[in-house]
């Protein structure tokens, strides 16, 4: 396979673009004064007789009701939150990876504005495998031309599931197609950069994203600087009514991957497999989401229906490339202020064997006492390609402390 040679020139081109854009932005938007709470001078009200006196103008130094500023070191501290994800599993799964009880992940998030031009997000994931930077990136928020850039380690903008952190999923697990073809929990999470632009088309939101990564994720692996991986995504969104909307996207990713190749018995290496490196890999995805949330009853009712289709093509060593297809359709319905019910149907081939098809289905029920904790039960049935079956019951306790994060949309 021919290595991808455009990496260095692309990196240089994007670096120059970012520098130029940052410079233009700096000129267009001079650094404003620090965001201190400056009281607005009160214009003289019209002298109209009133039964009660017009409230006195705010104190010129400390606005009325404004808490006294804390020490500077605290003011500039990032928003910090910690999320714990505890999972209990029961039942039968011949390929079980879940222990009966496990604190599967603790995620610490640190988020703050860097300067007038950027903000930064860090997500550290702690699991039994150790501590890992799940994401850590800077977002340039003030680029001209409705561009936005992210630089650092980030989850690639491929489909809907890959960008979601585990604790934000609507179910305990990820769909089979995500597990089989898009790297599961780890997904395409890699060091690189992302550039996106939104387009202001009447009645339609369009966003195009292009990303470049080093090739060190669960999906793409590279041993050479010239062999980078690339992700592109186009997303279109439209409000159907004030309470319903539809969101459609298509994603593509390509790069190289390492593949374990079984060795004939009695091979000279003595190992049952060898690893073939630098094999071309391509992914193509299509996703659609329909949301319904009646505004007058928004805290009691909500419906999300989502489907994703993913095609994978993996080059093999001394063998034809393997093509695999997977998809899921899922739905969640909020039927009371703190209760959600949902289900998902799964179908997926495997990266190195597209003819090995796994099928499954799940039903889940979530109790959401507050925005900061939730308890979820899920029944999961999987029929693996080899005929094995899994029937499991999963229980998840998800809890957060610290700063209030934004809702996932």
């Amino acid at each position, binding site marked *: 396979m021919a290595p991808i040679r455009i990496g260095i020139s692309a990196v240089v081109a994007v670096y120059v673009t970012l520098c130029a854009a940052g410079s233009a932005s700096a000129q267009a*938007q001079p650094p404003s004064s620090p965001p201190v*709470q400056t*009281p607005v001078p009160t214009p003289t009200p019209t002298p*109209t007789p009133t039964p009660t006196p017009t409230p006195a103008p705010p104190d010129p130094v400390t606005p009325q009701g404004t808490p006294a500023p804390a020490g500077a070191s605290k003011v500039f501290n990032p928003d910090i939150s910690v999320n714990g994800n505890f999972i209990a599993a029961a039942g039968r799964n011949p390929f079980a990876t879940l222990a009966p009880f496990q604190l599967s992940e603790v995620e610490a998030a640190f988020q703050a504005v860097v300067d007038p*031009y950027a903000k930064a997000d860090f997500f550290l994931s702690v699991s039994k495998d150790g501590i890992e930077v799940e994401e850590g990136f800077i977002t340039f928020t*003030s680029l001209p031309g409705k561009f936005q850039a992210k630089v650092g380690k980030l989850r690639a903008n491929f489909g809907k599931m890959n960008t979601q952190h585990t604790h934000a999923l609507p179910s305990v697990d990820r769909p089979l197609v995500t597990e089989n073809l898009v790297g599961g929990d780890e997904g395409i999470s890699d060091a690189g950069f992302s550039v996106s632009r939104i387009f202001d088309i009447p009645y339609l939101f369009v966003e195009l994203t292009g990303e470049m990564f080093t090739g060190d994720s669960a999906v793409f692996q590279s041993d050479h600087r010239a062999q980078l991986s690339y992700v592109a995504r186009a997303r279109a969104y439209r409000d159907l009514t004030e309470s319903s909307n539809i969101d459609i996207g298509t994603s593509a990713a390509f790069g190289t991957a390492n593949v374990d190749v079984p060795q004939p018995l009695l091979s000279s290496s003595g190992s049952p497999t060898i690893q073939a490196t630098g094999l071309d890999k391509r992914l193509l995805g299509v996703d659609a989401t329909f949301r319904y949330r009646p505004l*007058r*009853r928004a805290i009691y009712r909500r419906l999300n229906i989502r489907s994703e289709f993913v095609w994978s093509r993996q080059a093999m060593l001394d063998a034809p490339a393997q093509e695999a297809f997977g998809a899921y359709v899922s739905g969640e319905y909020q039927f009371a202020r703190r209760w959600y019910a949902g289900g998902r149907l799964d179908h997926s081939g495997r990266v190195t064997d597209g003819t090995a098809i796994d099928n499954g289905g799940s039903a889940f029920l979530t109790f959401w006492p*507050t925005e900061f904790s939730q308890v979820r039960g899920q029944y999961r049935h999987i029929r693996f390609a080899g005929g094995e079956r899994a029937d499991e019951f999963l229980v998840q306790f998800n809890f957060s402390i610290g700063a*209030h994060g934004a809702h996932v949309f």
Partner: protein
Amino acid sequence: MRLSTRLFILTALVSAALARPMAFAPLEVVATTEDLAALTREIGGDKVKVTGLAKGYQDPHNVDPKPSFIIAVSRADILIAVGRELEIGWLPPLITQSRNAKIQPGSKGYLDASLTVKILEIPTGQITRAMGDVHPSGNPHYWLDPGNGRLIAQAIQQKLTELDAADKAYFAQRYADFDKRLAAGEKRWDAMMAPYKGTKVVTYHRSWPNFMERFGLDVMGYVEPKPGIPPSPSHTIELIAAMKAQGVKLVVMESYFDAKTPEKIALEAGGKVVTLAPSVGGEKAATDYIQLFEFNVTTMAAALKQATGK
């Protein structure tokens, strides 16, 4: 006429045609709620194009940060927020994804409307999530005091003037007119509510401290046991007992909450539920900021008259 001269004239004409609407283009203002949008329309008149994000009949704490909102924020010259963490769950991603340098917090086009108003219920001492969904920097429902509405309007006038100095006199005149109408409204509303000063009421959520304080009513309890926590049976029983003991007859709620529990509480306590508009557009009659109070005060006074016999 030579071709180059013709092209020059054509280019100049096209440029002039394109430049004209730009010169007179109204300021694009995005307000996170319909209350702030209504106040901006009062001051900005036809010099501004205003978009409100959260509707008056939806819970402003729970709004989806939809991409259609990203587009609106991306176009904005000014973004006006309620602040005090009311929009903490949905505004930050909209601002980040808007790619609009003009309205980033700290920029000239960003206005936190809470900075010059009277804020109630600022927690003192240690606060924890055990207290429910508390707002660490005070109750964000401050627009429900017409006095605060005046202060917000002043801040908006200041901000519009800062970005469009040429229309300073226009904004000042609009403010003066609004102030006059608001003062006249306050006179009417105070007269209507005067007989009921000191009357105790129950509210569903802590949305009404500014309104109740402004009109001299006393909130003795809440349907929610803690902010953002749905009513529980034990709390409901305690609340009914307290209402009976203190002779409280009115339960005030917003239309976006389920009326079942408040109605049960009111029935048990021998009172009734009053549904007020928490924001402009929250009820059909609340078409602008002054009509919001016209509706709420008229509705409240009628309910108080029935409950107290005054």
